[in-house]
């Protein structure tokens, strides 16, 4: 339905805007969680249920919590920065320029995309693809996740102190 698209879209944009512009990093992380949950809502609207649930499980349930933990561990004594206006102008200007270019291309495109019949994305189908055509990327992903996990622990480990 149209109204749910606009509601979720509004949540995405407002959450993202909050995530990059709020003063305290904790508020940014919580706003990011809202934005990611709304993106998962969009996935559900588009019929990709598995991707939507995986998005909530991984992003809201793990990445957001990880960010929150790190924000707690790296708190500075001085309060939040004052955002320099000049700095913001450059960043916002570049971003607005990029948005203008992409949106102009999207609106001017003459390709006709017909909403085809809903493709089926069952869990069984995804499993068969993962174990069939995409088995090598899946194994590589497993390796990547293992290495990333071990690497993150090693990088963040404190140096052994002599008691």
């Amino acid at each position: 339905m149209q109204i749910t698209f606009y509601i979720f879209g509004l949540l995405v944009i407002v959450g993202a805007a909050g995530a990059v512009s709020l003063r305290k990093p904790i508020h940014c992380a919580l706003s990011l969680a809202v934005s990611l949950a709304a993106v998962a809502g969009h996935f559900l609207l588009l019929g990709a249920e598995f991707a939507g649930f995986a998005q909530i499980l991984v992003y809201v349930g793990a990445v957001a919590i990880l960010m929150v933990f790190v924000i707690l561990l790296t708190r500075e004594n001085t309060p939040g920065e004052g955002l320099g206006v000049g700095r913001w102008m450059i960043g916002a200007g570049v971003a607005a320029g990029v948005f203008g270019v992409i949106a102009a291309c999207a609106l001017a495109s003459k390709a006709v995309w017909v909403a085809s019949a809903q493709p089926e994305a069952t869990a069984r189908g995804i499993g068969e693809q993962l174990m069939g055509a995409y088995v090598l990327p899946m194994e590589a992903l497993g390796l990547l996740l293992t290495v990333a996990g071990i690497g993150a622990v090693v990088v963040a480990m404190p140096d052994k102190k002599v008691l």
Partner: protein
Amino acid sequence: MISITHYLILSSALFCIGLAGVLSRRNAIVVLIGIELMLNAGNLNFIAFWRFGANPQPLAGVMFVIFSIAIAAAEAAVGLALIVAMYRHYKTTDLDRLSSLKG
């Protein structure tokens, strides 16, 4: 009727907000948040094209997004570990102070 143009505009807006965050903020964690927003914009694009377009390979869009979500999680973990290590040395997460390799 919601067409693909709506989704393209939405995902490009999300991407550009993330880009603005990465370019303007000094706090390393907020930069990482901007990167996550950009990745999510890409994922939204993938799913939108999967839904509205012809699919010679079924489920390609969804597979790509699943891999992308996993890789983004791994990258966030490593990036945050780096930020923790950085904080331990410099006692700050301000990217402007990390200029010892400059010049």
